């Protein structure tokens, strides 16, 4: 058993988590990224989607942290996998209900950040559920 096949769960979630953090920060646009702000007097105020992005980035960080936990506490792999699936569900719920993006369907956040978060959340959710399964070839007798 080499390092990769022994630690595939932890590495997978560290990757997915970091991918979410950097993807949401650098590649997925919010309205503010596209230069749209609300105006109150002469002050520029961020629209709701800025907070959506921060929420998603936070959950992405948590997913990466869970991956790290899987490397350290390997015997807890099944519970951590389930928790990661829950974090994936959270990444779906944030842009939809918890910290909703802007109201107009064609605003930048609804074109980029929202679908991107849903996709990443779906990936993490599915990966979490799959990771709960014990694979005879990959896991050998170690994981029980």
């Amino acid at each position: 058993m080499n390092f990769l096949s022994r630690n595939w769960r932890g590495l997978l979630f560290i990757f997915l988590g970091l991918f979410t953090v950097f993807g949401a920060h650098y590649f997925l646009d919010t309205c503010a990224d596209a230069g749209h702000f609300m105006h109150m007097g002469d002050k520029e105020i961020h629209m709701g989607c800025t907070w959506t992005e921060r929420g998603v980035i936070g959950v992405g960080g948590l997913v990466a942290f869970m991956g790290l936990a899987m490397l350290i506490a390997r015997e807890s792999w099944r519970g951590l996998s389930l928790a990661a699936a829950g974090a994936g569900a959270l990444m779906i719920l944030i842009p939809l209900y918890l910290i909703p993006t802007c109201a107009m369907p064609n605003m930048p956040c609804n074109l980029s950040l929202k679908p991107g978060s849903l996709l990443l959340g779906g990936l993490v959710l599915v990966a979490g559920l799959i990771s709960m399964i014990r694979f005879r070839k990959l896991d050998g007798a170690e994981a029980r």
Partner: protein
Amino acid sequence: MPHSKGVPGLWRLAALNLLRNPGRSIAVLLGVLLVAGTAFAGGLITLGVNHAVETGLARLGADLMVVPKGSVDATHTALVMGEPVAFYMDGAILGQVAAIPGVRAASPQIYVETLSSSACCTGRMMLVGYDPESDFTVKPWLRYVLNRALDPDEIIVGNHVLGLTGDPMKFYGTDFRIAARLDPTGMGMDETVFLPATAVWEMAKNSVTLAEEPLAIPDGHVSAILVGLNDPAQAPEIARQIESQISGVSVVTAGQITQGVSDDLDGLMTYLLPIIVGVLLVVLVLFVILFAAIAHERSREIGLLRALGATVRQAIAALLMEAAFMGGLGGLAGVLAGYAVYGLFKTAIMVSYTLPFLYPNATQLISLGVAVVALAALGGALAAAYPAWRLTRLDPHHAIHAR
């Protein structure tokens, strides 16, 4: 097979074989998923764009649009994407247009760009003023959703415009109420607010005192004249007549709009097609290598099946079924993934390529999915055909005793 229960049919054998080396199967499935997903999304975009243009043009109901010279491109984006535009000409030419032989109906419309809203998240919208007297494009579906004429302060909104029936909306200082909402078209109309032309002129007059920025539309000025023809096939000919008889105007035909959209679609497909072809080649090579390896690995087992009474044809079929099964499964996963991912990024794609989109009906959608899955299965079987054919050249004795 109508055998008694428990007899392992060739299909079951093929399906179970995928579990032998799950890692390898998953890698190949992911490849197929990628190809099938992109192909499905490409097909879906093509179907959906065509559907949207047909629906949109059918609802527009006009064969020609007469607009001020130089406004053809702006008209295209306005119709397809709902980008607000503002161009005006004297509405007096309506009579001249209506008098041209072959013209069944002609009606003016006024396009107004709303002010950028200071509230969160409502962008700019397009207002369309129409003439209830001569109108033949708005009324048909206005009656369908409303069954009465509009009050002076009432508006009809496109599907994507926010607000409920009865909600107030303010444009250039004048208050309006939402009277009805339209079905989605996938085109610019979804972002459009409709109101009578007289209300637009009234609003323009009052905007000088009521609005932050006044709206400068002289009484009687219009943006476009929509023209219905007796024979739509005559559109290009009558368009030329109008342009030569009336100075300062250009004519947009429904055909030109369809053509413009199809050009934009080609632009998108130029990106998509090389990806599909490239990944397809990689996956095909992957398949050939995989099944060459499988045929080699299992030569003993295939020899055994032959000894148990399988004919050459059945032995080949077993391998081809496995390949077809793998291709079909990857194809199915690809169709589902393609549908989901496309659904998420649909609006972003449509906005960046100025394409209208409406989901095609279920029959078309399912046929497209089935076609992609069938092609993936067929492709898999074809890729495995060569290694399988080589097996026929090996007699069972050597297959069984091969190292």
